[in-house]
């Protein structure tokens, strides 16, 4: 395909808007309104009344639930994107270049949704900025302050990366971009000259290195540390949580990238822009990541049932009786088997819809695992004798809670919809124009 044709195909959504787009826009606007309504309701009655969360201890509640599980899930999802994009730049995996932009946008949106879930979970969301005000004093001791630091850094780096990588492109294709977003383009290309391109490339390379370094620090570090450092909850405490959670996060992240990329490919008929080979390669990585997730789960279970301390033993036994746990195991096993069958016999079994199906199953499974991890740790809290003196916790998310969490998925979708009308969703080479 010639570059001219590629540009036309990529810029097509920016120059034309289909009826299908307006329909989807209407759906997302509606879901956003519903999200806001639910949120206003929760703000009015209080997070303790609107959700299934409660106090652990004598009340037998669970203080962290779907929102915090959702937060961890979104953080995980945020990695895949920028990690793929950064890898393209740092180790020159050029064949993934067509999905880099979608991945970068996914990262920015996922990080925002992670933050939204934290705000949803708070008793006093109006005081969110207290965490920033007191950050210099709390960063020495509060894992949550570390999280705020690393997530903010990650968001700033991702946004900078996205913005810088857009400058040359926007400048080059300015005349083909929608007029009504002109102020934004002016802002993005402020002071641009073609002489900066080389410098920007170097900056982007270093930014990519920094982002790749942040991935294990965020999803394999501060986020699992929120839980694994808490000695009070035996279901959380432990040194291996970081490694296990990073693997899960990367699994869901890659699954997320596959789903989003496939949707764009299907919606804009980009079969020729995003080659099927990219999906086959992603499937191989996904298969091994999902396998590693099973492997970590197996470690968890074995240490929990074999001559474990009484409370950890009880906790693991209880988890083995949860239907959610077996759903997660089935989801993982089925996905891994399906993925290896696809890899082994691509001619007969590989298809992008099938891969998307497996990716959706994996995403939901990882979400299930994360929420279960958070909730289960608080259902069987503390150590004996208090563990047995307090009632076992119970938790079931309310409709409001479900809606607000699912609402964040719709919000992210809305974000993609808007982004696809503002910037080219596949990286273009500006030099071809000049």
């Amino acid at each position: 395909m010639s570059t001219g044709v590629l540009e036309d195909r990529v810029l097509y959504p920016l120059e034309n808007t289909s009826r299908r787009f307006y329909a989807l826009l209407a759906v997302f606007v509606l879901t956003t309104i519903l999200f806001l309504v639910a949120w206003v309701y929760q703000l009015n009655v209080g997070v303790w009344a609107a959700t299934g969360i409660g106090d652990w201890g004598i009340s037998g509640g669970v203080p962290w639930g779907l929102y915090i599980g959702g937060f961890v899930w979104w953080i995980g999802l945020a990695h895949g994107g920028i990690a793929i994009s950064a890898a393209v730049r740092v180790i020159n995996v050029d064949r993934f270049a067509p999905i880099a932009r979608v991945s970068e946008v996914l990262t920015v949106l996922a990080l925002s949704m992670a933050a939204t879930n934290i705000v949803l979970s708070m008793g006093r969301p109006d005081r969110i900025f207290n965490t920033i005000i007191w950050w210099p004093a709390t960063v020495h001791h509060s894992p949550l302050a570390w999280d705020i630091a690393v997530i903010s850094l990650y968001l700033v780096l991702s946004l900078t990366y996205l913005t810088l990588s857009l400058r040359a492109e926007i400048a080059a294709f300015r005349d083909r971009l929608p007029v009504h977003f002109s102020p934004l383009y002016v802002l993005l290309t402020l002071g641009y000259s073609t002489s900066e391109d080389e410098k920007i490339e170097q900056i982007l390379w270093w930014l990519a290195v920094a982002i790749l370094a942040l991935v294990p620090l965020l999803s394999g570090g501060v986020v699992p540390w929120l839980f694994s450092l808490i000695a009070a909850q035996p279901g959380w405490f432990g040194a291996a949580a970081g490694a296990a959670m990073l693997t899960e996060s990367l699994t869901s992240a890659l699954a997320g990238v596959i789903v989003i990329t496939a949707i764009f490919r299907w919606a804009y008929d980009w079969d020729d822009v995003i080659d099927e080979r990219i999906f086959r390669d992603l499937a191989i990585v996904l298969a091994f990541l999902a396998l590693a997730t099973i492997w970590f789960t197996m470690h968890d279970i074995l240490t929990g049932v074999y001559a474990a301390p009484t409370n950890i033993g009880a906790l693991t036994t209880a988890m083995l009786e949860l239907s959610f746990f077996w759903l997660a195991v089935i989801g993982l096993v089925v996905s891994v088997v399906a993925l290896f069958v696809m890899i082994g016999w691509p001619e007969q079994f590989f298809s992008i819809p099938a891969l998307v199906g497996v990716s959706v199953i994996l995403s939901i499974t990882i979400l299930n695992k994360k929420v279960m991890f958070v909730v289960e740790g608080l259902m069987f809290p503390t150590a004996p004798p208090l563990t047995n003196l307090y009632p076992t916790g119970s938790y079931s998310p309310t409709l409001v809670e479900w809606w607000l969490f699912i609402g964040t998925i719709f919000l992210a979708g809305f974000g993609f919809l808007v982004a696809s009308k503002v910037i080219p969703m596949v990286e273009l080479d500006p030099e071809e124009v000049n």
Partner: protein
Amino acid sequence: MCENGFTDPRLLSGVYINSCTFKTQSYPKPDRTVTHDEGIDMTSEIEPSACSCDDGNCACGTGGCACGSGKCTETIGDSSDQGPEMPDLGQGWTTGDLDEEWEAHAEEKLETVDFDVELGVEMSRDAMRLARGELTEAEFHDKHHEAIKAEFGIDERPTKSTPLEATRGGDGNALPGVPAVEGSGLSSRRGLMKAIGGLAATGATASVAGCLDQDAGGSASATDGDGGDNEVQMGMVIDTDQCIACLKCSEACKEENNTDRGAQWMHVFRYEEDEYGETRAGQMPRPCQHCSEPSCTYVCPTQSRFKREEDGIVVTDYDRCIGCKYCEVACPYGVNFLGKNEPTEKSPGFFGSETDQNDRHVGGPPPAGVMGKCTFCVHRQDDSAQRGTTACEDDCPVDAIHFGDMNDSESDPREYLRENDEETRFKLLEQQGNEPNIVYLGNEPSNEAKPVDGPYTYEDVGLETLAEDGGDD
């Protein structure tokens, strides 16, 4: 005072064991116990043997026992075994004035005691020298210090040793199981966090001491090196064997602090456990443990949860808390309750001061959406008329709760610990490393303890009934 007891030669002439000094030691089993009211005559016919007072101010004389206040308990031998009466020698007597027959009898009695008789006699003689002014008190204390420590493991008299060493145990710990915190090595959680803080290249000058109270401005400047080791550390000794699970403490707390429905800042566990085939019932009141290493303050992202420097009480700044519930999940004791603005009809409202002496909003029930828990009635601690009291302690009908400064050897809880040295004691979940400041007397619930309904439930005593206005402000 006990110390002064040594200056009274009569005290030491007969039986050298001053029960005030050595009350933490085990005595020969008493045959019977007689309890007197205050102001007993020193020339009572009761033969001296051993004496203890519940306020620690006692003097034992040859003829009896006197206490500074309260009751006085004498332990006396079998009456049939009474020997010759101790002669009344009046003031200013010397050993030479002693009746030989009586001394022989005294020594004979002491043969039956497990303690070092020679040391006792020697001390008695020195005490007389002290009384005559031939020896200073410090010299006297110093002279036998080693021997007394060797004999009893402790020497409570005011020698060079610190009060902490004097209380209990050869390891110099003030309380059972509290690891010594001197030196800020990496052994303590704070030490480790400080090391991390030191490594953090943020350029901020804050230290982890920020988990502790800072000035009202909340500046992030580093406080003194080891801010966690409060000079005053309020705590409680709770005697679970005394406790009758009547829920008076929970009720008093609710009335005083106007807590929400479902929130029991002071909860009383009632449980049963199997003990070698026998079912044992027990009860254990559970306030916030006001830990010395409170994990809730460490995790707080706004330093809303903090430990007051003036008295070691752990409280929440209600005006700053964001309701993230991280303190709640990081606490191993389950004492946190998110504010819901659902007061019960048990309480007419909160009438104490909502702000503490540093003007931080920490007293009373938490507003909706922010975290609350037992404050050790912080509003009382900042009020000179009520300082040193809590609602739960005041209302306990069986005197099971003893609130006070755990670092003050003269405080009520420490006194109670000494008086009940024979009783087993424990701190809840000590292995978690939070260094709680509640010491329980009695048996710790086993890992198999199962909760059972007590004689009363919270519903029975109306603690769960919402107030009519439902909390609408």
